[in-house]
């Protein structure tokens, strides 16, 4: 048991307690949390900084506005309703199309149809704060539904994969792709059953995946190999992530980026308490990389430089990749 602990420490595994005490509490001041916890504010800040985000169609911030919802989405082919202060992907409803035969019914990504009243009830739940921390009243965002890049078609099941990048003091240090599965209900959240695949920081090539803390090498639904895919626009993605740190002011940050077929990489959201499963997906601990950044940190470096340094420092060749045997 204690031997595990020692070996994990050597592998540089970052635990929850240490992440919270040494990084989140130290580098993420509480007053900056709204910048990432409130998706409306995140979007505004990102737009001001000239970063690409999914287009915002409208906001519903009170129960009376819920009635306006059908008009608001009338002309939209597809859209997403999400709570501004939701966490862990809870409360996100993705509408992939509207039924033309039956007016007032909407199609979910899994093909099911829901009624206008279902849609309104969901929006009303969001506004009343069902998905927000502490049940505080919330705002529902209606935004652009990302059309995913065909390169991920083989390795995702109904939904848009996203790329999670951990940014430490402005430097991207680790990345993974989250691939929706049938169990995750088309959502790219690991705790819902999505597959996480590590990404080589140097090249943007995917490594093996992890499903519920177990290493997998093929997608559970499609059977396609997860490793060996090259993520397009990798340079730009790392630069966007590095810029995300400047926008929010947070020193330990998770940046979620999706690649849209038409519009390229878009910042989906940012997270002040990014999860630790990314270490399993990459088969590497965060601690060594965090330490390396502390050694080479340069306060004057711009996002482009920081992204370049990250590619150089954390490329797979430099890593001592642990042998993968899939057994756990």
């Amino acid at each position, binding site marked *: 048991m204690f031997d595990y602990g020692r070996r*994990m420490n050597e592998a540089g595994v970052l635990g*929850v307690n240490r992440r919270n005490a040494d990084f989140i509490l130290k580098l993420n001041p509480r007053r900056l949390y709204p910048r990432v916890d409130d998706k409306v504010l995140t979007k505004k800040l990102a737009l001001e900084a000239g970063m690409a985000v999914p287009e915002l169609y409208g906001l519903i911030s009170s129960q009376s506005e819920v009635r306006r919802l059908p008009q608001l989405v009338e002309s939209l082919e597809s859209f997403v309703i999400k709570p501004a202060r939701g966490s862990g992907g*809870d*409360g996100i409803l993705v509408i992939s199309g509207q039924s033309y035969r039956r007016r007032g019914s909407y199609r979910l990504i899994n093909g099911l149809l829901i009624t206008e009243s279902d849609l309104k009830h969901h929006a009303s*739940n969001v506004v009343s704060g069902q998905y927000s921390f502490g049940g505080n009243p919330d705002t529902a965002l209606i935004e652009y539904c990302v059309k995913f890049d065909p390169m991920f078609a083989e390795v995702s099941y109904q939904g848009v994969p996203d790329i999670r990048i951990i940014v430490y003091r402005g430097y991207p240090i680790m990345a993974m792709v989250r691939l929706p599965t049938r169990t995750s209900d088309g959502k790219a959240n690991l705790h*819902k059953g999505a597959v996480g695949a590590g990404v080589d920081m140097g090249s943007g090539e995917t490594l093996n995946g*992890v499903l519920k803390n177990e290493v997998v090498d093929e997608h559970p639904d499609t059977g396609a190999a997860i490793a060996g895919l090259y993520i397009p626009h990798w340079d730009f993605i790392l630069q966007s992530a590095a810029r995300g740190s400047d926008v929010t002011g947070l020193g330990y940050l998770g940046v979620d980026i999706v690649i849209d077929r038409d519009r390229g990489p878009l910042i989906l959201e940012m997270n002040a308490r990014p999860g630790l499963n990314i270490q399993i997906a990459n*088969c590497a601990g965060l601690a060594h990389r965090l330490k390396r950044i502390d050694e080479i940190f340069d306060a004057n470096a711009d996002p482009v430089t920081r992204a370049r340094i990250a590619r150089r420092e954390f490329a797979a060749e430099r890593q001592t990749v642990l042998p993968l045997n899939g057994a756990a």
Partner: protein
Amino acid sequence: MTLRYVFALAGLLTAIGVSMFLYKWQVLGFPVTDNQKTPIWTIETAIRFDSGPGSIKANLQIPTLTPGFRMLHEYNVSKGFGFGLNYVSGGREAQWAVRRSDGSQTLYYRRVVYEDTGSDQSDTTPPFPPPPVINEPFKTAVDVIVSEVREHSADPASFTAELLRLANDPSPDANVELLLADARTSADFVQMITTILASARIPARMIRGIVLQDRQRRVEPLPWLEIHDGDRWRYFNPNTGEETLPDRYLIWWRGSEPLVRVEGGSNVEVNFAVQKNHLDSIAIAEQRAALEQSRLVDFSLFSLPIRTQAVYSVLLMIPVGALVMVVLRNVIGIDAFGTFMPVLIALSFRETQLFWGVLLFTLLVTLGLSIRFFLERLRLLLVPRLSAVLIVVVLLMLVISIVSHKLGMETGLSVALFPMVIIAMTIERMSVVWEERGATDAIRGVSGSLVVAIFAYLVMGMHWLEHLIFTFPELLLIILAAVLLLGRYTGYRLVELRRFKVLAGD
């Protein structure tokens, strides 16, 4: 830097907590374990006399220094008499006085003491006594005996032992016989011995005390001999010359004065009665602290009304539950709903007992959850829906109580002690998790909460711990220090060893 502050603060809190604890435990004698009953003795002196018409003044010798015993309290019972305590040459005196009195009177003086072998009561070193003025032929006899005994002894103690041996000789020599001819009572005997010792310039006095035994009436004070060897007082059995003090011997007064003097009364009769009781050690510690005027105890829990004390005996265990919670969540890594929900559930387990508590909790949550799923279909807004769940929980509690009462299971009644708002919130949270993340996560969360609650209950239910915290609330400072330190625990959680097993190269 922060870490150093945390350590310093934790160290400071621990130091304060430990030192207060040690002071109360070692100095004030608060018991660390429950059921420590200390025997206490109540000695009652009753003075009966007939008073003629006129004023009465009664003086009673009462204890001053009592090696081996400490006083808890003393009081007097007397109707219409003024009462006062005076210091006199032999020690202390209680004085009753009344201007006009007639008929038979009884005055009581009661003293409550407890044994404390560690009580050292320093006495003054007396000066060498002046040589007593003794008339012939006794003077010659005393001189002969003193010179004879001095031959066979080395110091005051051995002198006394030798003198007592001579005096108690079954076939005494002529000088001893002459001196002791008038000593009819053992008090007279001891008095004569002190006179001889005074001639040898050894400070000596007669002490009289009571051997404490339970349920005694009409106890006769037992005379004993006390001499000072220049360093400390030593006690001798006047009948054997042995240097010892009887077991449970409470020294009542010293010197040759009579126990009681009544001016204006006749047919004086004094009677001692002894009664043994057991008193909570806490009460003794408190009274002792009160005598020593310790401020610490003024602010202790025991100064609160009993009902409030009962509330605090429960409330003070919450920090212990919180500590268990911190360990289970941050060191072990068990998931639980809500931060303090498990501790509150554990509190209600105290009333229901563990088995029934778990059963009722499970029943309540299961029923509440199924009704919550039904409510979901009604599309209610959040706050009304939560209120509806709360009302349903209250109704369920009522139904469970009534049904179990009808079935003759009184334990079911204690369901009313569950924190219903907390349970309603748990049900709501669980149903959201159930829908969002599936039944597995929801059940894992609620069983995690239950596990934490059970652990917290087991620890909070330790009787000795409860007693310890209640008697020494300053121990909570140590718990606070432990929580602060755990707040800076950055090591792995136990469940993480499994979670990141792959990375450990396994």
